[in-house]
């Protein structure tokens, strides 16, 4: 009986330790790669839980083309399906892709593409402070670009 109680306490404890709760803030050092754009980028992401399990995630990614410049701005909503060390989430959001070309004329050297983000991800808690994050997003309005991202989260509060 004592063993069962101990296992139950540990089980509940582990869930409480790594729950998502209203008012929680996270910050992420993030990287991403777009299969359609063939561009790698890095940037910063923040996450705020407006209610338990549901968060708003704005991020800015600086992409690194060989010539010119590119950025990708995302604002996503994430819903976490479970709690604990391993967390799965689905996401839906908005992206704004901006590409400045180096060799085009003044009138056509800027490409701007707003669109939808649909995807999901996986968050693995490695310590009280840190977690690793991997996600994939489909962007149907950006030439079916598939964005793969990995990053490291710091759990601020």
């Amino acid at each position, binding site marked *: 009986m004592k063993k069962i109680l101990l296992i139950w306490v540990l089980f509940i404890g582990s869930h409480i330790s790594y729950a998502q709760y209203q008012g929680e803030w996270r910050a992420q*050092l993030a990287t991403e790669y777009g299969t359609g754009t063939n561009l790698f980028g*890095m940037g910063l992401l923040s996450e705020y839980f407006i209610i338990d399990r549901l968060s708003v995630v704005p991020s800015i990614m600086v992409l*690194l083309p060989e010539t010119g410049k590119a950025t990708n701005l995302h604002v996503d909503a994430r819903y976490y399906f479970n709690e604990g060390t391993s967390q799965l989430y689905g996401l839906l959001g908005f992206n704004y892709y901006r590409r400045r070309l*180096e*060799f085009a004329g003044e009138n056509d050297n800027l490409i701007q593409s707003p669109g939808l983000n649909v995807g999901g991800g996986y968050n693995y808690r490695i310590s*009280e*402070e*840190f977690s690793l994050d991997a996600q994939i997003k489909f962007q149907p309005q950006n030439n079916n670009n598939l964005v793969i991202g990995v990053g490291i989260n710091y759990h*601020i*509060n």
Partner: protein
Amino acid sequence: MYLSKFAKQNLLALGICFWTISAFGQGDAPQQFIPSERTNLLATTESWNGLYLKFRLGDRWLWYQENHYRRRSSVDNRGDFIGRMSQIYNRFGFTYLARDNFEITFGPTLVWNFTPDPGNPEFVTSTLEPRFWHQWLLVQPMGRVKLFHQFRFEHRFKRDNNVGAPYNYTDRFRYKVYAYIPINKPRMENHTFFISPSNEIFFETGSHITDILEENRIYTAIGYTHNNFMFFGGHMWTYGPSAIPAEYRQRHIIRLNVMYTLDFRDSRNVRRALVR
């Protein structure tokens, strides 16, 4: 094989003959410039303004961040410090406190390098220079003075601002020795005036690099600590080879910095205690 004295003399003459023909036969080849002496360019001036952040994330982890706004002297006035935009410099990293006297930092860097000639269409306004960097810092207490040995390694992807210039990869190896010397207190603490002299040497390797020595920087800062802030600044002199062999450039740089430190550990623990 035995060769007579005559045969040896003939072979020697033949060798000299071939060498002479081959040497004179390269009339169209570019002549390699061999400088006879070192030339020092006149010093230029710059102004570097930096924000440093150190956030204590856990017992052994810190977030480290540098954001610099750097300007340099005008094309036609090398003494004005701020005539042209030079760089926006962003360095981020996680620091792991391995021991009291040893810490490791690693992370990305992203630098905007601005055109050397504003308004010239042959140059793009700015280029991006991403890097990965890691640093190994050893702390050596010496009475009231703390001496630091900083080994920093940067793996850089950099290009010129010329339109269409390719990216080149280089590795940079830096060693900096610096000290914090408190003036009005027995050790570094709140409300301490201090002086911080340093010297840093830069080496660079890469397929297009001709001189492994990149630069030496001598920097003396004075500063003051106030609660979570540290204000410090001073003069830095840099000296190193230019792109032309035996030609050296030098810069006088005024640096003004503020560092802000914050400890997240308490707020996280209190918050979680309230939530649970």
